């Protein structure tokens, strides 16, 4: 199955990742108290659960855009050169069921 077969442009989690990229203050809050940031978005229950469980497979099955998936992994696992390697590995492990 292609990465975009389920693509759902209406998912609120897309806006979450966009806002986190664009707003350093929101990003700090996300690191300190993730739940309070998730509360601000009209996430569907399965969508929120997937984020909380770092379950990228589930999130993609719901229709999440994979490029934003890579960025969400960096927002969670690290965004410098080495953090990105960690994020990539965690993401791939989740997608291939080896996490």
């Amino acid at each position, binding site marked *: 199955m292609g*990465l975009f077969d389920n693509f759902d442009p209406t998912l609120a989690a897309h806006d979450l990742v966009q806002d986190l990229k664009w707003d350093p203050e929101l990003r700090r809050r996300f690191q300190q108290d993730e739940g309070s940031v998730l509360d601000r978005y009209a996430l569907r229950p399965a969508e929120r659960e997937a984020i909380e469980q770092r379950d990228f497979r589930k999130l993609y099955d719901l229709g999440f855009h994979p490029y934003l998936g*890579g960025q969400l992994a960096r927002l969670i696992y690290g965004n410098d050169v080495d953090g990105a390697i960690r994020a990539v590995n965690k993401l791939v492990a989740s997608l291939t069921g080896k996490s």
Partner: protein
Amino acid sequence: MAELVYAAGIPHAPTLVGLFSRAPSEVQKVVRDSCDALVHDLEAARPDVLIVFANDHLTNSRISAYPDFLIGMAAEHSGPHEWFKPWIGCRDYTAKGDTTVAEALFRGMTRRGIRMNAERRNLNFDDNISVPTVLMDLDKRDVRIVPVLQNTTVPPYPDQRRCYAVGQALADFIRDDLPAGLRVGLLGSGGLSHEPGGSRYYFIDEAFDRWFLDLCCSGDHRRLLDELTIERMEAAGSGGTSELLAWVVVMGAIGERPGRSFGYALHKEFRCGIGAVSWAVNDHAAERR
């Protein structure tokens, strides 16, 4: 009647900067040779303005209002955008913009039936513009930049035929709308094969990449349009490889001209195939062949 004097395609993987020093020397050599050749041709061509097409990567717009093309009309272009700095690991830059040419481009594409968005603010640049800028020191040269960020990953996006037609309109615009004597260069930023955010994040499709580079150098655009489909690019790395559509815009603008590439590097840790092309668009470039 301006003159098209330069055309090239260059990858923009952030790892080309951040992980360069850790790469094997033969991989480093391909990157260096490619950049040196593109810079050499750029210096010979002396463009006044360089129009750079590159994947927007969802860096400027929400999915609910996602444009096919977004022109940066600012007088200066600074980057990388804050969040992307540690990720790319590159220096800050401020490149000269060209508001007059950018406005003319917006007007010209509108009149030629091609919808583009345009913004006066400094756009958010990630690796798309930042990596070519620092690899080629574009900010330190006497050239003005007009970035055009393009949708190559949020469905539905313009396919190879549409992007080629945009390139043809671009050539028309350069010839008919820009002032005589202005020297214009084109840069397609993106690729080669990669799958950012996918389960094949470390996959690089060497066969596709070599085929694509050969096709670019051949100047056979009938084959390009028939064979460089979205399906084929998706198979070579979903959600990433299709940013080669930025190169297709450039090829649409220059027509069927041959190009040169400067080696190919497959380095898994780069998470992207590496190769560049410089096309023969002016007499100077043709002479050297």
